């Protein structure tokens, strides 16, 4: 028996399905912790997942203050004494790599990511 056209068609369908799933697959990295920087120094870390209750984080720099709120793995700038309040208007951020930046106060919060959990069982 040799390979038939239906075989090729079937293989093509499965490959297309695989690529379609790959296109819509979620991000590989998940959020790990939110790091707060003031004047380019790391001043505070909040682990994502340990903050299901709301946590207020007040960050001070030489230029001014920003109040952040961390909740359910998301972070938001609640109030700031900067002139434009761009940080407050950027809303909730939750994906790894996203940041909230208050340029005038030289304060920013960035969400770091880690690789998903390692394999815990080998299939044989």
């Amino acid at each position, binding site marked *: 028996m040799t390979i038939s056209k239906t075989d090729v068609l*079937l293989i093509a369908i499965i490959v297309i399905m695989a690529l379609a799933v790959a296109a819509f697959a979620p991000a590989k990295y998940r959020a790990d912790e939110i790091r707060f920087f003031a004047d380019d120094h790391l001043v505070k870390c909040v682990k994502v997942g340990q903050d299901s209750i709301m946590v207020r984080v007040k960050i001070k720099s030489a230029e001014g203050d920003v109040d952040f709120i961390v909740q359910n793995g998301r972070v938001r700038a609640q109030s700031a004494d900067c002139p434009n309040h761009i940080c407050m208007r950027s809303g909730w951020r939750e994906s790894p790599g996203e940041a909230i930046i208050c340029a005038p106060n030289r304060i920013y919060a960035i969400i770091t990511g880690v690789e998903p959990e390692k394999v815990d069982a080998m299939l044989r």
Partner: protein
Amino acid sequence: MSQETALALARMDDKKLGSGRIIGLSVFVAASITAHILESQLVIGSVVPGVKFGLANIFAMLVLIYYGPPAALIVILGRVIGGALMNGTLLQLPFLFSLCGALVSYVVLILAYKIGKIHLSFVGISVLAASAHNLTQLFIAAAVIGSMAIWSLIPALLLSAVFFGSITGTAVNLVTARLSTYLPRG
């Protein structure tokens, strides 16, 4: 025992569970356990979790062709249990994965063989069975871990099922072309 003797014995009792049939099936069980252990020693499984050759599937398909579906189930179960005994994973989590994957892929294999035989060669049947096997293991892994994140492995598992399923299917195509002169189809 030489291969010709085994095949001659296997031919003796066609449908009944006679001694020739038992010996013939034992040879296939032994061969598929060997393939199972051999591929568990290969490194590809540790690069992407769950990816493997499926060499044992060659023997399962051959048994399905020449001895029929019940015999194929016996060989598959024998391979899963025997392979787990050899690997030392009997009744552990990998055994559960192996068993469920084998059973679901057995059902898909039978269906594809009965329904798709006219249009599909063993490459297509093997690819379908391999995809079913990999997806089943993925669903069980998702249930065990309780996380949807593992679903990002779907593309890799499907593509590997296509790749390795094509290889094993081609092997079965080649083997049946030669073996059919010795063995009647079950």
